[in-house]
């Protein structure tokens, strides 16, 4: 009887193991679409078999294995960080580019062309009041166009600042989720597949927002460090980041208030910081530079004013006055450019009654030292061209990076994902094999009965 009890014990143990194995399969199938879930498999161990001592053998469970590949996960996170950066750059430079008309038919380019043409017309009829009015009107249009452009770019910078603050807030929110996972993990001996899936889903989301690296500690908790090594989450401690503004541009501060902006080079946050501090900063200026748009406004105003102030009004010989006014603060030049309401246009100089007006008309092709040897038209064209190139480069990078991320995602799905076909085939194969075994056992039992029947009547 002891053998029968041992067998029954082994049978009970086997059923228990099978229930767990089936639970794992069903969990895999149910979570096949769960973000961050890695397929699980049940490890089995043989139990000792020794009939003499009553050890009935059988199997027992030896823990769960998941199919997650840390290398593949890290690759996907890194590629996603880069994609997040390019996507943010493409969107933000696209917004900036929309304020520039590359065709030159509207905006600052068209206004500048009209002003230079009005100078030319004025030089032909220097005493014609209509030509003078045309110059004043064109100058007003140029000034308002430049002001409007500066205002649009400033508003865009504010929108980017808001987006940066919102992104930082999202990063802190995800960091709180990871901190919560770490706290839970410290209370468990083995990781829970559901919590593990949530962790990796959170890390995937974080990789869209910023660049970071992770280290899994011996106790199973995950330490998350921002690009340059500033901790974001360490064990059960979260180190929230903050945003700030400085004369140099938008800033990211760690929980101690240290500036870590230079460490944020990836993800949506990295892309937004780059567009705000580098691209917009180069146009609008900051504590380190005047800004190309301000340089353009200053060069235009100074050159035109200089020529007009050196001339005289004919007849009468009164000295000319400045056409444009602007702020003495270089970084505010474009935003404050306006037409002098008390202007006296001086068309004459020593070269004749229209000598000064001719000099203004020649500005179309005159290289200016303060613009690096470029004319006004060329310089503004270069500003337009640069932002166009920025947007094109970011868009191209985004497109190619999407392919890389798609490949990395496919790799992850192959390694860690749940294959419904495999799980279903596994279930059906087991079902068929057991049904076949049951039939053979029935045959075996029938033969045993018939052999007994052969002997029993004769004994």
């Amino acid at each position: 009887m002891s053998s029968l009890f041992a067998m029954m014990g082994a049978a009970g143990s086997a059923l228990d193991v099978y229930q767990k194995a089936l639970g794992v399969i069903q969990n895999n199938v149910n979570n096949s679409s769960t973000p961050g879930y890695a397929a699980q498999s049940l490890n089995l161990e043989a139990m000792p078999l020794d009939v003499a001592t009553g050890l009935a053998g059988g199997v027992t469970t030896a823990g769960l294995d998941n199919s997650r590949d840390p290398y593949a996960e890290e690759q996907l996170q890194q590629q996603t960080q880069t994609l997040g950066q390019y996507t943010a750059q493409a969107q933000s430079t696209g917004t900036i580019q929309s304020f520039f008309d590359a065709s030159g038919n509207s905006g600052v380019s068209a206004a500048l062309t009209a002003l230079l043409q009005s100078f030319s017309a004025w030089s032909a009829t220097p005493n014609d009041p209509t030509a003078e009015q045309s110059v004043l009107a064109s100058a007003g249009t140029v000034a308002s166009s430049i002001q409007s452009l500066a205002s649009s770019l400033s508003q865009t910078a504010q929108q980017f600042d808001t987006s940066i603050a919102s992104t930082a807030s999202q990063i802190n929110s995800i960091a709180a989720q990871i901190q919560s996972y770490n706290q839970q993990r410290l209370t468990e001996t083995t990781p829970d597949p559901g919590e593990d899936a949530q962790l990796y889903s959170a890390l995937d989301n974080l990789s869209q927002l910023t660049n970071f690296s992770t280290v899994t500690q011996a106790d199973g908790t995950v330490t998350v460090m921002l690009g340059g090594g500033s901790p974001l989450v360490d064990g059960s401690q979260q180190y929230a980041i903050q945003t700030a503004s400085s004369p140099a541009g938008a800033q990211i501060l760690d929980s101690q208030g240290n500036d870590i902006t230079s460490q944020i080079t990836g993800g949506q946050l990295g892309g937004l910081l780059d567009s705000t501090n580098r691209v917009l900063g180069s146009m609008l200026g900051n504590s380190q530079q005047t800004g190309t748009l301000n340089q353009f406004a200053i060069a235009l105003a100074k050159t035109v004013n200089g020529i007009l102030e050196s001339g005289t009004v004919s007849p009468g010989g009164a000295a000319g006055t400045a056409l444009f006014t602007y702020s003495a603060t270089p970084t505010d030049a474009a935003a404050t450019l306006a037409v002098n309401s008390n202007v006296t246009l001086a068309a004459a100089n020593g070269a004749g009654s229209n000598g000064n007006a001719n000099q203004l008309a020649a500005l179309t092709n005159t290289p200016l030292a303060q613009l690096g040897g470029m004319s006004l038209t060329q310089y503004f064209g270069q500003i337009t061209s640069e932002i166009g190139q920025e947007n094109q480069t970011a868009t191209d990078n985004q497109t190619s990076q999407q392919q890389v991320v798609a490949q990395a995602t496919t790799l992850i799905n192959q390694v860690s994902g749940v294959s419904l076909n495999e799980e279903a085939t596994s279930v059906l194969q087991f079902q068929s094999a057991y049904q076949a075994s049951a039939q053979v056992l029935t045959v075996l039992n029938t033969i045993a009965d018939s052999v007994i029947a052969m002997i029993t009547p004769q004994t």
Partner: protein
Amino acid sequence: MRRRPSDRVRAARANLRLSAQLCGGADINDLHRAFNLLETSVAEMRQAGAEVRHGIPDDCAEFLREIALLKHEIAGTMRVVDGCAALYRGVSMRLGLTSLTYAPKGSSVAQVPSAAACELQG
């Protein structure tokens, strides 16, 4: 040395016991090996039956005792196999699976419902 019918029943029981061990592991290859061992047990018992038809074995009492032990083992193994088959039948019904088919390369594949359907059923 010629094997007696009781030796054949003992061999069938040994194969059956080993088969029961392999049935316990959630490994389809082990399950196939277990199935082969069961077929070997059947072959041994068929041979033992053929020999009994030609004459009652000398060790009749030993022979009957071995068969009784074999039937006990069959009953125990049957419970394991029936239980596991029922579990898998239940899971496959729950997952909405129908049957196995075979791919051109010979690997078995299954008709799988969509992930969304699985989640609804799960």
